[in-house]
């Protein structure tokens, strides 16, 4: 059986950044496994600009951003295998992969970085009875068709869900000559980035209808139109608000879900809120030496943060290979999100193992205006940052320093919450 120090599952931005960081931390035996025919992950179909301002101080398109990291991986001489699907990972880190040349084969790893990204939610989004005529696509599928295969799914279009992919596709379909009639969102707020609402809808006069959903689909063979209705605060359609839109295409952009079949299979403990692994300060799962980063850990909206998080995972995996598991793990600090904070990544901190600074990332459950993001060490409020607005569509962060945590040797719980100003 082949053996590597670190095996990285997935060659998207997370896997690439983890690999580069692990190599720079002094590990030479690294292998990236990617099921697609090229590296770069989802970025290859995200041809719009807006990537990398934080990392490279310039605004790149998805493929350009990916190529910066692919170049690093090439220059560092890191080994990767394309067209190779990872089928299974055992708890003792034997990776079973498959490709055309080698068939099914096994690789022993000392450490593993999970970087499989996410996929689109689709089933359940349209919980209405009736036919499913041709012309209904997930927004990401449509993005792949238009941008990579040059195939236009239709001419008149309605988009359900205001996630970023849906917003981006509203503009993209408009450029390709389609008429995008409306974007409907079930929630009273958009799940997408504000800049995408401005640049993809407002610029082209495409209306965004909040608290609306599709209640009826017309057409047997091909979609002929859909009916939208307003919903009440329980998400129930309000009779009398129905409006018919003629269209041949319906795109669904109703969120992303981390791709964790492999993690589940090997016994990694999951956080039901993120649908990603529960990790400690080292981005390590409950299985020692198994790390997670990027969209497989929790769905990110900014690839810069994916790269940053993944580089930390890569460094930590390298440290694990060199130094082994944390010696006598002492009391760990538990992190909790309450009062509007839905989750935190990581979930626990072992101060001895943390870097000088640790970024705790989280999402909020609703829109809060003029609020404080507050951090409590047990019952004492130690940090408070004023925010004009926080929203579920945008990931938030709190920075903790090791120096500060060392001053609280008996600290049990760190709580992050939203407080009214």
């Amino acid at each position: 059986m082949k053996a590597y120090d670190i095996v990285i599952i997935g060659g998207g931005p997370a896997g690439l950044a983890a690999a580069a960081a692990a190599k720079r931390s002094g590990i030479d035996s690294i292998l990236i496994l990617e099921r697609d025919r090229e590296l770069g992950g989802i970025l290859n179909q995200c041809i719009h600009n807006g990537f990398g301002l934080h990392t490279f101080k310039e605004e790149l398109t998805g493929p350009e951003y990916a190529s910066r990291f692919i170049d690093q991986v090439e220059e560092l001489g890191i080994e990767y295998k394309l067209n190779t699907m990872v089928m299974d990972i055992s708890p003792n880190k034997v990776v079973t992969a498959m490709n055309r040349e080698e068939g099914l084969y096994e690789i022993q790893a000392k450490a593993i970085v999970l970087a499989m990204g996410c996929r689109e939610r689709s089933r359940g989004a349209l919980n209405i009875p009736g036919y499913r005529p041709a012309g209904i696509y997930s927004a990401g599928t449509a993005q792949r068709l238009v941008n990579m295969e040059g195939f236009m799914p239709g001419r008149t279009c309605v988009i359900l869900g205001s996630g970023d992919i849906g917003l981006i596709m509203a503009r993209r379909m408009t450029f390709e000559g389609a008429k995008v009639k409306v974007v409907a969102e079930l929630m009273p707020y958009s799940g997408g980035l504000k800049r995408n609402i401005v640049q993809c809808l407002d610029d082209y006069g495409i209306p965004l209808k909040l608290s609306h959903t599709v209640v009826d689909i017309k057409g047997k063979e091909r979609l002929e139109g859909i009916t939208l209705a307003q919903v009440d605060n329980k998400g129930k359609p309000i009779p009398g608000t129905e409006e018919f839109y003629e269209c041949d295409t319906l795109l669904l952009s109703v969120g992303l879900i981390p791709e964790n079949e492999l993690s589940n299979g090997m016994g990694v403990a999951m956080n039901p809120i993120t649908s990603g692994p529960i990790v400690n300060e080292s981005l390590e799962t409950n299985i020692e030496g198994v790390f997670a980063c990027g969209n497989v850990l929790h769905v990110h909206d900014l690839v810069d943060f994916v790269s940053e998080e993944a580089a930390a995972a890569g460094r930590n995996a390298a440290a694990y290979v060199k130094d082994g598991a944390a010696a006598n793990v002492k009391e760990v600090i538990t992190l909790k999100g309450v009062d509007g904070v839905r989750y935190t990544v990581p979930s626990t901190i072992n101060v001895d193992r943390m870097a000088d600074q640790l970024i705790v990332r989280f999402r909020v459950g609703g829109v809060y205006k003029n609020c404080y993001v507050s951090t409590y060490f047990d019952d004492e409020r130690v940090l408070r940052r004023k925010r004009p607005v926080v929203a579920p569509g945008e990931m938030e962060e709190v920075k903790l320093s090791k120096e500060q945590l060392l001053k609280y040797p008996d600290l049990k719980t760190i709580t992050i919450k939203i407080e009214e100003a």
Partner: protein
Amino acid sequence: MEIKLTCIACPMGCPLSVEMDGDKVVSVTGNTCPRGKVYGEKEVTNPTRIVTSTVKVSGGESVMVSVKTKNDIPKGKIFDVVKALKDVEIPAPVKIGDIVIADVAGTGVDIVATKNVD
């Protein structure tokens, strides 16, 4: 007069408020970084956008290559640029940064490739 905007110079999307005196910008507030100020001033006087799209490739590993305007172009010219890209086909190989159309739609800005296609 005060104009409320969302900075789109990066995905943070900071809420900006631009104070105007006639057609002069007096101040920009709400920005997290200096780019926000530049964006705010420009958006109220001369709004521009980067346009991204795809063109066909012949004889390559993929059938499409992604492209963008090398710099931003006036917002009002977006559809002229989009039209100019229609039915363009270029031969492989293509490298990131290759000029696909020079001075697109009279904007003085080039369309460049954003992906390598061998």
